[in-house]
């Protein structure tokens, strides 16, 4: 009897020890992806792209989260609540108490003031000042005329007041963009312009801590055990820098990475979606973004609205969507894509009618057709080249003789900035969920030149300003719907193409992956689950 008891006790002890050992040695949950560009820095004030680190290492006052495919909502982040004054100029944010930065410091209102003032400080040489240039005193600060920003104030340890020069409705949405991530003053200030250049020089409050950064190779983030929403399920997040799309695909197929972002190699979509194994592993979601062609009104023949309308009608967008993008998207007819607030499903449709286009071109004074150019960046993916070759063949029926002009990327952007780039194609995905992010970007007084549209329209500029300050939701929606009709139908200032789904392929061990609300290739992985 005694022997059997001893046996039971020993067995249970071994079992317990086994369980404990298994817990201690449980495999690390690692999520590995490939990204096609080396981030310049983890300092989100100093870069306009590659936000994978900021989206996982930092938090914002407000966060924009995916609530359903193609839908998003602004939810409390580092601020638990906020108030907006009646005149729409004063925003008061109440910070979450007890939030710790990765260096152990507690988040305070002074950190928020420091973060935004640092962005506007000319010594920082920040690239993202656009998100704050409407704050009271921002211009003086940027021009070096003031030692601090008048509109930024810490009312107490956990309350921040931001005063704007004039009402700016998209402000809350902008506060949720990665550029508005919050830094720790004590950590950041002494590092000056060295902040964000290494893993050791990076500090946020986010779910992951940047642990290692090997330039041009990979960077590794590890779970923040003290994250205020709870420790992330993933222990380690590795981002490999792989510039070659073929290599990226092979890394995925050999199991070395957990996620393949089809945006980095669109031509692989049919392979993956029709593959017996990978077809079941695709995850997709709508993108709050739009593919488009531009018209440069400073270059003939697009100074004539009839020519622009003719070109709009000469492109069979549906066919391109079907044949080139395998119908993974929907046609767009305006400036605002699906998923954007104030999206207008009743926007007038652009018809495909090459015969009518030919007549319009003749009416515009080009009965024998007209020569024109489409500029392409030689080094970027072949999708733009292929799409433009298809467009070239399509519009030829209406009389447009298109020359595809290959340009070096640096020359492309330098010429575009001067307002001298001929027609080009690109895509834009929302930085923040507001029509201003599309309208003002493309058709604002500076954007229209710097992006080589040259649609100089005082009427549009005035409406855009009004849209920024219109606080009545319904009136604002009507304003943008009218503006959309004016820009796309009346002025024919651009050719909207379509919004595409963003398709990813994941390894079977990835049990949950949330497509970011805007369809970016940069995303937070806090919700991601792996086996």
């Amino acid at each position, binding site marked *: 009897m005694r022997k059997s008891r001893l046996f039971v006790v020993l067995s249970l002890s071994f079992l317990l020890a086994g369980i404990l050992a298994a817990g201690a040695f449980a495999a690390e949950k690692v999520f590995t992806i490939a990204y096609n560009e080396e981030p310049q820095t983890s300092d989100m004030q100093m870069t306009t792209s590659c936000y994978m680190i900021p989206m996982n290492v930092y938090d914002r006052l407000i966060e924009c989260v995916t609530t359903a495919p193609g839908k998003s909502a602004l939810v409390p982040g580092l601020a638990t609540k906020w108030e907006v004054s009646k005149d729409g100029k004063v925003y008061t944010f109440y910070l979450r108490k007890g939030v710790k930065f990765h260096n152990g410091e507690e988040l305070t209102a002074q950190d928020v003031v420091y973060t935004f003032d640092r962005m506007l400080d000319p010594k920082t040489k920040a690239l993202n000042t656009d998100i704050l240039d409407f704050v009271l005193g921002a211009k003086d600060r940027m021009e070096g005329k003031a030692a601090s920003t008048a509109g930024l104030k810490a009312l107490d340890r956990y309350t921040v007041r931001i005063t704007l020069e004039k009402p700016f409705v998209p402000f809350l949405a902008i506060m949720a963009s990665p550029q508005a991530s919050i830094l720790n003053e004590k950590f950041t200030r002494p590092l000056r312009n060295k902040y964000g*250049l290494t893993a050791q020089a990076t500090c946020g409050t986010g779910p992951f801590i940047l642990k290692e950064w090997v330039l041009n190779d990979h960077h590794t983030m590890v779970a923040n055990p003290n994250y205020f929403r709870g420790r992330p399920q993933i222990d380690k997040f590795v981002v490999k820098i792989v510039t070659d799309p073929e290599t990226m695909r092979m890394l995925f197929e050999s199991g070395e990475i957990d996620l393949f972002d089809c945006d980095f190699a669109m031509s692989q979509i049919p392979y993956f979606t029709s593959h017996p194994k990978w077809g079941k592993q695709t995850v997709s979601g709508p993108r709050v973004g739009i593919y488009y062609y531009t018209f440069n009104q400073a270059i003939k023949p697009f100074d004539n609205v009839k020519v622009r309308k003719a070109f709009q009608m000469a492109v069979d967008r549906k066919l391109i969507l079907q044949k080139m993008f395998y119908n993974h998207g929907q046609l767009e007819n305006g400036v605002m894509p699906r998923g954007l607030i104030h999206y207008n499903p009743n926007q007038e449709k652009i018809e495909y009618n090459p015969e009518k286009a030919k007549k319009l071109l003749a009416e515009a004074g080009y009965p024998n057709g007209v020569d024109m150019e489409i500029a392409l960046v030689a080094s970027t993916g072949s999708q733009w080249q292929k799409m433009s070759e298809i467009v070239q063949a399509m519009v030829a029926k209406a009389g447009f003789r298109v020359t595809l002009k290959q340009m070096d990327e640096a020359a492309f952007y330098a010429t575009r900035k001067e307002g001298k780039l001929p027609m080009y194609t690109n895509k834009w995905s929302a930085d923040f969920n507001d029509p201003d992010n599309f309208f003002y970007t493309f058709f604002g007084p500076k954007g229209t030149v710097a992006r080589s549209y040259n649609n100089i329209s005082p009427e549009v500029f005035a409406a855009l300003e009004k849209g920024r300050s219109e606080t009545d939701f319904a009136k604002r929606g009507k304003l943008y719907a009218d503006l959309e009709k004016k820009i796309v139908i009346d002025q024919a200032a651009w050719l909207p193409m379509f919004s595409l789904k963003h398709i990813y392929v994941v390894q079977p061990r990835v049990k949950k992956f949330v497509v970011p609300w805007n369809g970016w290739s940069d995303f937070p992985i806090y919700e991601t689950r792996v086996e």
Partner: protein
Amino acid sequence: MLKFILKRLLISIPILIGVTVIIFFLLNVVPGDPVALMMKEHISVDVVARVRAQMHLDDPAIVRYFRFLAGALRGDLGESYKLNRPVTSLILNAFPNTFVLALWAALFAWVVGIPAGILSAVKKYSLPDNLFMGFSLLGVSMPVFWSALLFQYVFAVKLRWLPVAGFEDWRYVIMPAIVLGWSSAGIIARLTRSSLLEVMRNDYIRTARAKGLHELPVIFGHALKNSLLPVVTVMAIQVAGLLAGAVITESVFGIPGVGRIAVNAIQARDMPLLQGAVLFETTLVILGNLAADILYAFLDPRIKAA
């Protein structure tokens, strides 16, 4: 010999200055704005103008060039426009990776190329000769990006013997070293073969055979030493070339080396980084050529005497 080395090193100074002038001139002739390129789709003319002024990009080209040259003479190659980091540290951090890759590629080229060349020469027009020469012709002719993709597909995706890309441990070096070294191996094999065949026709080889020496001592004791002279020269130059940047191999296999830095710098119009990378690589090529000359002098005393 010391005088010879010093003379060669002094000649290299105007070469290096000339290279910086050419690079600077070329980058100023072609249109491109590094700040506009950094901002890409998020362009803002106000921000571009302000940041350009802060980075002194609006200064006259001649001022910027001499600022760079003055810094370079002090060992300071400036700061990368795009990466905001000192160019010297970026290059020195990347160089060990390029060095490891070049070293293994060179070793592969020598270990495979020299025996293949010897065997081909000894067994002239035989099956092994044809096989080895076919192998070397393939190595010389096949573009590196193609052989790299083939290797990745077969050995990483299908057989899963090796990792596809990256640079973490010794397993990551095998494929890129073979791919990169294959072309050099081909050149060395063909050169060894032709050189050995030429030497074997000499009278002293006939004499060695006539006095009854076995074929192996004839080849390794008499012929090989003399036939390797041009091969060693090529080997030294090849090492310099491999160190100067295996641009495509580094890109396809994701190796964070100097070649990849140079390509990124060209694409980003990152003048300080590109100038630094080119200056560094030019120095390596000059040193490689110098090493080849010195080696040659050691191997062939007649040259030293001349």
